[in-house]
């Protein structure tokens, strides 16, 4: 069931199996993400969302299957400055200021120094730029980490719960930013367990217990499950089991 390489697909995953700690956590998952779209990766925690994202970025040891990103095998050296990755826990240096963190990561990526001010503005941290990260609030800390992924000119952003713990205004601003990026041709894969964020995505991937149980747009999903909300649709799909999904076992 190898899928043909589609010209405008940013991500092609085919029959991906991942084993962690002796347990199979992804059971032969297949999916495609189109370029220039915002795709939501939804599902309960522990379902394999983060593992899938780690596989796309090339930091996860995979058991079998194909993971192609921007036309290259995931983890290829050429991809390292083209893919931005946000881990679930903020991964920046707490003993440095936001600006020092960003300057460092910009240097590693070979991004211009002017990028630092741009991304600080994009995550609304310009005023806090010279504060040490460990003295920031949790939301600010998370935004410094998010800002790192926006450095340079990434073509694919893999964001693991970028809006968790943020207030509604900021969350809305970030989703606008995600759409601006997508309009410029950037592909975004955003995981969330906040179901209402699904309304901001072009396409939804629902993952549960290592299986893809839905791959569709929100309206399609609601029609197919005869539901009014994503939450309801999700609960119906969970009750129905993996049947009827694109990612069959």
């Amino acid at each position, binding site marked *: 069931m190898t899928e043909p390489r589609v010209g405008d697909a940013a991500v092609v995953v085919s029959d991906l199996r991942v*084993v*962690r*700690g002796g347990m199979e956590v992804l059971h032969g998952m297949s999916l495609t993400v189109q370029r220039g779209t915002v795709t939501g990766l939804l599902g309960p925690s522990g379902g394999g969302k983060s593992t899938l994202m780690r596989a796309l*970025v*090339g*930091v*996860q*040891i995979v058991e079998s299957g194909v993971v192609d990103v921007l036309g290259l095998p995931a*983890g290829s*050296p050429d991809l*390292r*400055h083209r*893919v931005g*990755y946000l*881990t679930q*826990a*903020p*991964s*920046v*240096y*707490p*003993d*440095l200021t936001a600006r*020092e963190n960003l300057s*460092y*990561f910009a*240097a*590693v*990526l*070979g991004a211009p120094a002017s990028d630092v001010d741009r991304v600080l503005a994009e995550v609304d941290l310009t005023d806090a730029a010279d504060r*040490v990260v460990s003295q920031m609030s949790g939301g600010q800390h998370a935004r410094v980490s998010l800002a*790192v992924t926006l450095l340079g000119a990434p073509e694919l952003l893999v964001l693991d719960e970028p809006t968790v713990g943020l207030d509604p205004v900021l969350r809305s601003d970030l989703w606008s930013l995600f759409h601006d990026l997508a309009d410029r041709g950037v592909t975004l894969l955003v995981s969330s367990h906040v179901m209402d964020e699904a309304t901001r995505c072009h396409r939804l991937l629902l993952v549960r217990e290592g299986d893809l149980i839905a791959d569709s747009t929100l309206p399609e999903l609601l029609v197919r499950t005869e539901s009014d909300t994503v939450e309801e649709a999700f609960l119906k799909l969970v009750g129905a089991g993996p049947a009827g999904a694109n990612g069959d076992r």
Partner: protein
Amino acid sequence: MTWRITWATARRALTQIRHDHRSIALILGVPTMLMGLLAWMYSDQPGFFDQIGASLLGLFPCIVMFLITAVTTLRERRSGTLERLLAMPMGKADFLGGYALAFGLAATAQAVVVATLSLSVFGLDVAGPAWAVVLVAVADALLGTALGLWVSAFAATEFQAVQFMPAVIFPQLLLSGLLVARDQLPPVLEVVSMVMPLSYAVDAMKHLTTSPTVGASLWGNLAVVLGFTLAALVLGAATLRRRTP
């Protein structure tokens, strides 16, 4: 290896140290205080202070840099920054080289301060030139850095990382010839002491204590210390994985 990335990493590590005033005070102050204490203890037997003073001058930077590196690298591994860096165009040699450069500079500052005070204020008398004393101290510090990097792979918490210091450094210290001359150790222990890098660090300092010239024996011992340092860095590099389970 990309020089831009190595240099950026070294600058970043130094900026982290710069933000941490208490650590700077500890790095510079503790070995100075211990050397002063030692000079005071042996104020009636200056010959004995001269005998072990230089060796200890080489051991302090090794121990301090071991601890700093083990804890710092462990933090990188556990906080996700290492994973993030390795998903970027960061080479393992850039990462290790950056740290070796930054901590090497910090160790140089430490060695210069402690050696200067020991030689001038505390009355430490060595036969060899002062610059050679500093050079050996810096080599010892780099050894500590490399060992700390490697050991950090086996520690799950900072508490464990600190516990590795007595496990890795103390046996070397006991067998280094500081307490009992190595050729007077039981034969098995003498052989063991030959494969321990700190033995050569102490030998190098002992050479400077008694010999006014910088000879082949000093360079030989320094080369062995640097060889162990490189080996530990290679082992450390092997523990940095881009893909993890």
